[in-house]
């Protein structure tokens, strides 16, 4: 019975997937070679602009500096990834 239980739970996620996910998160922070204050400044400016047009969820807003492959695949280039949940569109924007 215990073995069966173990079998069922083991299938959920392999340890290498856990490793990969953890690595990806750690590297996002390692690669963002800027101070948290800098990112906060960028974040608040972006919020200001977007709020003119739409209502956003400021709490779950997420901005990160990361790395990605360039279009030709030859170089690694930095990238700014922003995840901004929109609550509602403002009428003024239509």
């Amino acid at each position: 019975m215990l073995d069966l239980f173990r079998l069922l739970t083991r299938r959920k996620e392999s340890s290498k997937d856990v490793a990969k996910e953890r690595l990806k998160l750690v590297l996002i922070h390692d690669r963002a070679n800027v101070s948290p204050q800098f990112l906060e400044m960028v974040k608040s400016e972006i919020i200001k602009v977007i709020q003119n047009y739409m209502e956003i969820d400021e709490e779950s807003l997420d901005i990160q500096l990361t790395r990605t492959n360039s279009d030709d695949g030859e170089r690694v280039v930095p990238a700014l990834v922003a995840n901004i949940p929109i609550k509602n569109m403002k009428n003024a924007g239509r």
Partner: protein
Amino acid sequence: MGEVIVITSGKGGVGKTTTTANIGTGLAVHGKKVVLIDTDIGLRNLDVVMGLENRIVYDLVDVVEGTCRLKQALIKDKRFDGLYLLPAAQTRDKNSVSPEQMMWLCDELRKEFDYILIDCPAGIEQGFKNAIAGADRAIVITTPEVSAVRDADRIIGLLESQEIRNPRLLINRVRPDMVKRGDMMSMEDIVDILAIKMIGVVPDDENIIISTNRGEPAVIDNKSLAGQAYRNITKRVMGEDVPLLDLNVSDGFLSKMKKLFGFKSA
């Protein structure tokens, strides 16, 4: 003009010295003139891995300080034609050498040798800066572990900021059985995360320990799978296009029976 290749990793204990010894020996077997430089001052090891520890008279620091001539400090490996070692100093510290001195040294050696391989110390401090100062190319070593991959990522960033473009990745100590059951990151997983090109993958192989015990690089051992991997990597260093080693364990009936009776599956 020779080429200077630095072998680096960030994290310690992932196989920089073993890789330097094996690629260097492999290149010499192909008839190239090769010199290996141990830049891990204070913790020298390349000499013992190569089995040349009893022949050291002068070292890297003696050369840059002018205590001896460069030629006097080079140890000739009598087993392989054209293979030389420049050992690190054991009783000094990393600040005994400067990046400018390393650049001078690399330029001098370029005139004489086809390949200059630099065994880099762990870490990102002075020793690392010295080791990469004169390098044209870099091989970054990692193992399929979170800590080693993280450090490799940092090293790749530092190499790029030092204008050493297109470093190549070597994944060491891969265990195909663990990859198969999802308990070890695969080559593809790691390449996906680090976004650089591979130069090879080396399986975890107990022959590496045996050959290091004897001071004979595994690359000359025809029965070792890791040796085969290093022979392929050597060819890729020379610019040949060699397919990656197939590490998939064939668990056919025969190999299972062999394992059962304690035979090594070929």
